[in-house]
C-alpha cells in the first residue's frame, strides 16, 4: 500500500478520496489552487499544498505543478479524481517516470483507450455491439456528408477527445450537418486541443446505461452492475440510479458479463465504466469507456457495499482484487441526485457565492457527498457541482419516497441550486414509471417539468 497520496483534485471528490486514504491508513496531501484555500478538503487534510492560482490550467490541469507538489511532500502516489488530469495518459506516464504511481489505469492502458473510435473498434472485436458510426475520424465535409448518408440521419457529431457531453451536436439533415461542422471543430479544438470529430447514429429515444467494472493487474475482473443515467440535461447527467428500470435482471446480467469479459480481454486495468445506449427494444450499443472513478460511483457503492475508491487505490498499488464475481451481491435500489449551483429558472446559469446556511439531510439510506459548509464561498472558476445526495431503499418506490424527504430537508441558502428540478422529477410520471430517456428533459423543457410539479 502507498505511504502518502497526493489528492490532485478539488470539491467533493477530493474529500471522498481523503476519506478513502484514511480508511486505508495512507497519509494524504490535498493539492489546492489559491481559490480553494478555504475548501473543506484543505481544512480536513493532514497536509495541504497550494499548487497555483485559480486558473485551472496553472493548477489542477498543470501536470508539472501536481508532480512537483507530490515530490516535495514525499508522496508515492497521485490520485487524480475525475476530470482535470484523470484520463491524461501523458500525465500518468510522467508520474511513473518520477517514481510515483498514478492511481488509475497505467499510462499505456490509458493510451490504448484514449481514442473513442479506436476503443469502439477494439471492444467490438472483443464482442461488444457498437452503435453504427463513421469509419474513423471525419476527414472533411464531403467525408462527413457521405458517412452521415450511409449511417442514416439523425446523426450525432462527437469530438474524439471529448467527455461530459461537451462539443456534441445532433443534426437531422445534411444542411444542418454542413452548417455546424465547423463550429463543432472549433469547439472541440478550444475545449480539448484536438479537433477530430466522428459521427454516430442518433437514437431518438434511448437510455444511458453504464456498466462498472473493476480489473486488477493480474487480469482478474468483476462487474459491479450497471447504473442508469438517462436523466440528462444537454448530455449532462443529473440523476443516476441502479438497477436500471429499463432492463430485466437477465438482460442486465448479460450486458454486465459481456462488458467485463470484453475489457479483461482488451487488457484494461483498474476501475472503469462502459457506457451503453439502450434503445426502446432493449438493444444495447457500446459508446465509450471512462477510465476513472466517476461522479456517480456512490450509487454502486450503496448497492454492493464495496468502497470503490479504496478498491481503486488498492489495485493501483498492485494488490489483487481479493474477491470474485459471486462475492458481489446487489441489494435494493439507489438514486443519486447531483446538486449543482445552477439556476433552472435562468437556463441553468451557473452561480457562485457564499453558502449562508448548509444542512445535509440524513435518515435511513441517505448519504451526502459534499464539500459544502455554512459560510463556504463557492468559487466561480470550476464546475458547478456542490455535492451529491445518494438515497438507498430496499426497492425503487421506497428509494423515491426517501429521496423526496431528503431533498426537502436539504438546505443550501445563499446560492441557487437545481434541487427544484430533482423535486419536479420525483413527481413526474415518466420518471416514476422508470421510462426516462436521455432527451426527454431537453425535449419537454425543464420549465415544463417545474410547472407540472408546481401544479401537483
Amino acid at each position, binding site marked *: 500500500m502507498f505511504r502518502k497520496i497526493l489528492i490532485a483534485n478539488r470539491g467533493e471528490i477530493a474529500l471522498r478520496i481523503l476519506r478513502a486514504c484514511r480508511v486505508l491508513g495512507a497519509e494524504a496531501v490535498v493539492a*489546492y489552487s*489559491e*481559490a480553494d*484555500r*478555504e475548501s473543506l478538503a*484543505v*481544512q*480536513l*487534510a*493532514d*497536509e*495541504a*499544498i*497550494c*499548487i*497555483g*492560482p*485559480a486558473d485551472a490550467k496553472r*493548477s489542477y490541469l498543470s501536470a*508539472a*505543478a501536481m*508532480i*512537483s*507538489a507530490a*515530490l*516535495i*511532500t*514525499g508522496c508515492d502516489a497521485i490520485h487524480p479524481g475525475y476530470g482535470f488530469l484523470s484520463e491524461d495518459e501523458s500525465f500518468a506516464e510522467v508520474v511513473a517516470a*518520477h517514481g510515483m504511481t498514478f492511481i488509475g489505469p497505467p499510462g499505456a492502458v490509458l493510451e490504448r483507450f484514449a481514442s473513442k473510435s479506436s476503443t469502439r473498434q477494439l471492444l467490438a472485436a472483443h464482442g461488444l455491439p457498437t452503435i453504427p458510426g463513421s469509419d474513423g475520424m471525419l476527414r472533411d465535409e464531403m467525408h462527413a456528408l457521405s458517412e452521415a448518408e450511409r449511417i442514416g440521419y439523425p446523426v450525432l457529431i462527437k469530438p474524439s477527445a471529448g467527455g461530459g457531453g461537451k462539443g456534441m451536436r445532433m443534426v437531422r439533415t445534411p444542411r444542418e450537418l454542413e452548417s455546424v461542422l465547423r463550429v463543432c471543430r472549433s469547439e472541440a479544438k478550444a475545449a480539448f486541443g484536438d479537433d477530430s470529430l466522428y459521427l454516430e447514429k442518433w437514437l431518438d429515444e434511448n437510455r444511458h446505461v453504464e456498466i462498472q467494472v473493476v480489473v486488477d493487474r493480474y487480469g482478474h475482473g468483476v462487474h459491479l452492475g450497471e447504473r442508469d443515467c438517462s436523466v440528462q440535461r444537454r448530455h449532462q447527467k443529473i440523476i443516476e440510479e441502479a438497477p436500471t428500470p429499463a432492463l430485466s435482471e437477465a438482460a442486465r446480467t448479460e450486458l454486465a458479463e459481456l462488458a467485463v469479459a470484453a475489457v479483461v480481454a482488451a487488457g484494461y486495468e483498474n476501475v472503469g465504466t462502459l457506457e451503453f445506449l439502450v434503445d426502446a427494444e432493449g438493444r444495447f450499443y457500446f459508446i465509450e469507456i471512462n477510465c476513472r472513478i466517476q461522479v456517480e460511483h456512490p450509487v454502486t457503492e450503496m448497492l454492493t457495499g464495496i468502497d470503490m475508491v479504496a478498491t481503486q487505490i488498492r489495485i493501483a498499488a498492485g494488490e489483487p482484487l481479493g474477491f470474485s464475481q459471486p462475492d458481489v451481491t446487489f441489494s435494493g435500489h439507489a438514486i443519486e441526485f447531483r446538486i449543482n449551483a445552477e439556476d433552472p429558472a435562468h437556463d441553468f446559469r451557473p452561480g*457562485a*457565492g*457564499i453558502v*449562508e446556511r448548509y444542512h445535509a439531510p440524513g435518515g435511513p439510506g441517505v448519504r451526502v457527498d459534499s464539500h459544502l459548509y*455554512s*459560510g*463556504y*464561498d463557492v*468559487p*466561480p472558476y470550476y464546475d458547478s457541482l456542490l455535492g451529491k445526495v445518494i438515497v438507498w431503499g430496499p426497492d425503487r418506490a421506497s428509494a423515491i419516497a426517501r429521496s423526496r424527504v431528503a431533498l426537502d430537508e436539504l438546505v443550501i441558502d445563499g446560492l441557487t441550486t437545481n434541487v427544484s428540478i430533482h423535486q419536479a422529477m420525483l413527481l413526474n410520471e415518466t420518471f416514476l414509471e422508470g421510462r426516462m430517456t436521455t432527451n426527454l428533459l431537453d425535449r419537454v423543457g425543464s420549465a415544463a417539468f417545474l410547472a407540472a410539479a408546481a401544479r401537483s
Partner: protein
Amino acid sequence: MSDQPPLETRVVEAAAAQEPIERSAAARSADHAAIAGSIDELLPALIAKLGATGLAELEIREDALRVRLRRPPEGAVPHDRRAGDRARGDRARGAAPSGGGSHGPGLTPVGPGRDGRDGREARGGDGRDHARPDQVRDVATSPAVGIYHPRAEAHAGSRVRSGDRLGSVDVLGVPQEVVAPRDGLIGASLVEPGDAVEYGQELVVIEFASAATEGAAAAGPPPAADH
C-alpha cells in the same frame, strides 16, 4: 490577532508614465522624494479611514501617484489575492461569515515540507508589517510549487528594484523566477535555500525604508542586483 485583519499597503503605481523615460538621476530622486513625502502624509490618514469603514479596498489617485489599500481576507496570502478576487460588486469579504479566522487551529491548512513544518509558521506569522506608518514592507512570494534557490547576490541589505530577480523556484528542473515586488532593501529570508515551497508562499521580505532614508538612499550607490 486583532479583530480587524492587518492592512496591506502597497504603492501600486508611482510613476508618471507619460514622461520621457530619459531623465536625470536628480529628477528621479526628486520624484522618489515627492512620492515618499506624499505617502508619508497620505498613508496614516488612509489607513485610519479604511480601518474605520467596513470597506475592503480603498484607492486614491493624486496626479501621477496612485495608492491602493486593501484589507486582505484573514488567512490569505495578501500579495496574490487580487487574482482570486472576483468582480462581484460590493461584496465586502472582511464582513462575510466565511472568515477563515473562525476555524479552530486544527483546521488550518498546513504548508509543504518534509519536516512537517507549518507553512504559516514558516512565514513567521508576522510576515506583514506591523503598521509603523513610516516603515512599509512587502514580501516576494513563490511563483510556483517546488524547491527554492536564492541568488547568491541577493543577500539581506542589498538594494533591489521592482522586478529584480531574487532567486528561483525549481519545478521539475525548470526554474521559475522569484522577483522583488517593489523597490527596496532585501530583508529577512522567510525560508532556507533548498526548502520546499508552495505557490504564493512568502519567501523574502522587501523593506522599503522610511521617507527620509528612501530619499537619501536614492542618491546613494546603484542597486546591487543587475538588470
